[in-house]
């Protein structure tokens, strides 16, 4: 496995307000390669003070018939959030520290424009509340310097929250927060990890290790069982 040490300079300088400092200086990183699909994040998300009883993180099986690979998905907290741009009711607000909030209950008209427009498929319309809800980076926690629930509990630390210095000294891989979806160019506050620097084609990704093409060595053994 080739790994690259990286050092990330925070895109925005730490602000003067307490809330800006809280999330402004730290990184949220998703490394789906480490995800074990345990759903601790899903279960803990439900325990967060800002959306008690409703889990807003996504945890997807990629294709359970061929792989145990799973992938968590928090809100990427876009620099220019598409969800907010397409909201006809101006119900989705971005905080100074870059956190994009769930819809404001009094304003949300439940139209699901945001659900359709988000390039990452993050927002969900929740029938019971007639409102869009999504990851708000556990604002009750991160605004007072606590880690969000999902990254707190994540057993494999596929979801990671900490300073850039902590990342540089303890973790490997290249951080990515720029995305192209056709003509759309998106920069996000949340990072993901790739093994090599440079552009990544997610459609034509290569198998990471030779054995994965034939886990049980069936071709090598020349037998069906």
């Amino acid at each position: 496995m080739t790994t690259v040490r990286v050092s990330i300079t925070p895109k925005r300088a730490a602000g003067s307000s307490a809330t800006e400092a809280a999330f402004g200086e730290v990184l949220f990183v998703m490394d789906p390669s480490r995800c074990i699909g345990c759903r601790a994040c899903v279960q803990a998300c439900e325990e967060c003070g800002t959306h008690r009883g409703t889990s807003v993180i996504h945890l997807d099986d990629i294709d359970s018939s061929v792989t145990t690979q799973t992938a968590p998905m928090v809100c990427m907290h876009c620099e220019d959030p598409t969800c907010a741009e397409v909201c006809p009711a101006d119900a989705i607000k971005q905080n100074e520290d870059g956190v994009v909030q769930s819809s404001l209950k009094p304003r949300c008209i439940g139209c699901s424009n945001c659900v359709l427009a988000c390039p990452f498929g993050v927002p969900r319309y929740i029938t019971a509340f007639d409102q869009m809800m999504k990851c708000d980076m556990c604002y009750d926690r991160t605004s007072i310097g606590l880690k969000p629930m999902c990254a707190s509990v994540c057993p494999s630390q596929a979801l990671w929250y900490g300073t850039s210095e902590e990342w540089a000294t303890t973790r490997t891989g290249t951080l990515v927060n720029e995305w192209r979806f056709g003509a759309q160019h998106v920069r996000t506050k949340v990072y993901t990890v790739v093994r090599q620097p440079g552009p990544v084609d997610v459609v034509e990704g290569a198998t990471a290790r030779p054995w994965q093409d034939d886990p049980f060595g069936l071709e090598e053994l020349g037998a069906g069982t």
Partner: protein
Amino acid sequence: MARPPLTDEELVARYGPHLNREPAGGWNAGIDVDREVKTHCCFCGQQCGIILKVKDDEVVGFEPWYEFPFNEGKLCPKGVKRYLQNAHPDRLLEPLERDPSHPDGFRPVSWDHALDRTVSEIQRIQSRYGKDAFAMLSGVSLNNEKSYLIGKFARLALGTANLDYNGRLCMVSAGVANKRALGIDRASNPWSDIPLADVVFIVGANVAECAPITTSYVWRARDRGAKLIVADPRVTPLARTADLFLGLRPGTDSALLGAILHVIIDRDWLDHEFIDAHTEGFEEAAAAVADHTPAWAEEITGVPAGRIEQAAEWWATSPTGMLLHARGLEHHTKGVENVSAAINLGLATGKYGKPGCGVTTITGQGNGQGGREHGHKCDQLPGNRDVTNPEHRAQVASVWGCDVDEIPGKGLTAEEIVEAIDRGEIKGLLSICFNPVVSLPDTAFTRQAFDKLEFYATIDFFLSETAFHADIVLPGSLHEEDEGTSTTLEGRVVKLNPSKKPPGNARVDWEIICDLARRIGKGRYFPYRSAAEIFDELRLASKGGSADYFGITWERIEREYGVFWPCPEPDHPGTPRLFEGGRFYTDTGRGRFTPVRYRPPAEVVDDEYPIWLTTGRVVSQYLSGTQTRRIAQLVAQYPEPLCEVHPTLASQYGIETGDLVQVTSRRGSMTLPAKVVATIRPDTVFIPYHWAGRQAANQLTNRALDPLSKIPEFKVSAVRIERVGSQHAPVVDERDLELHTASEP
């Protein structure tokens, strides 16, 4: 006859499992809590630190305990949702007595009646059939104090030799092999050594689902550049990322490990200096694998010879390395041999007693480590002493203040106790913290045996499927309702703090045990006024034993975030890493090689039963599911057992995902949905074992035991499969369904 008073369906309708979905007081209850209690998770052997939030004397939520060094706030889904076992509609609040004429099958009775009836039945059975005709079964989700107390209670109050525990289904193969080869039964290293390893070799351990936090330690090693090798019949979630995967056939572990030793010897990748200075028996162990060539092992294990050679090279030539194993290596009729073969690899390459070097089991149950040290087992006395050793008996008798002859000798192991019940030799039983009707192999046999008991009493907080058979049910305490210590898979003794009192008329377990002892007339041996007093006696009783806790106090544990035994004196720092300087705990001080030659499992596939069955766990359920099958969010995650089938095998039988398949072994048959996955060997199917009744995987498993550890061979059975229908209702997470349906435009 201890037959269930009603049908299973009627008992389930009354006593559950029902699902608890919300904290007491609703989702807002956790905002402004009365107190926060630092304690540990009640589930697996990692014993993660957790803070429980308490409001109005109910546990209403959790908060990560970031300062506790083992898990630093991390938790698996079971830990996150464990608080929902509180304020549960199924919770037993009153003592119960079996009454088939009662609409609930059991009638509530007073504590006096329940305890007096239990004691009179114990005395009736023992006076008629002898002391050993009354047995006790216990479990290692109990803390150290209770484990110790039960060992003493069974010997001095019941006077029976027949006490055993559910660790018999868990860590005993490792225990026997460790004591024999290393002179001590404990993890060789603190987990902080895993990140220092240059190669991590995981054999028969679904770490991601059974010890999820351990994955973070493995990744810390890999961030340093360590290689990961995984041997498993399935590509488990952590195996998916491995640098090398050895997808072996169930029951062939000792062939694989023997071939690896063969290669290490053949290429002379041995640590001769370590072998000469610190070990014995190498020549015999080497001779045993002389013909275990990689080509030979490829035939047996189904693992390509090239991969075996690669594993040998990485393990032997890396300067540091940790080998981690669990039930996949140990649940076999040759479990002790398998673990011994793993230990041989550590001894041969000098990977003991140094930073980042060790061979260790990943203990499974909550207190699987501490609960196997202090006299809970049929052959053991506190301090991991031997019940047949006169010197050990005298030491313990002096602490207990009893005549040495009052301590019975070696008794039967858990499965043997059930077999003795079936033969009519054991007539009465008291159990706590054990659900054998779900967790022992060959369910039909276990149920038949329990039906034959003349009297059965159990202490439990929910009515488990085994408790369905009880004459008397004594409502005990949850983990968060009692106080004491637990010993983690690292060998770290930690403190469990109480969050609340037992509800209704339920009582703290240790008080129930002491009350029974008083009524039996042995109260003089059980004068405890607190769990702390029990721990102080445990310290004394363990002093000088191999599991020496004498220097550990509750105060030290809290101050130091746990203390690693052996800790013989109050000023001793504890022993995080064993075997430093190549000093082993055997009588010669040397690590002992064990000659291990491969032999087949007790049952092998044939024309009638052509497919291997292996069993195991899923991340959202714990053991027999008594607690976790009652928590809605955990149930939603994996609601029912599924049979994993490889696409090649599935196509032979015309099976698709969701189809109902009937899986049949020589013991029984079950029907369940198939899950077609390319992540299992094509000659093997997998079923998780957490469910009861017709959903119990153990309807199929084999009662064959390891000759030394007496662990059943859960990991290998021969079965046939057949498609019996398509299942139209797909298994889904209900909450996801709700959300996805709602979000579709």
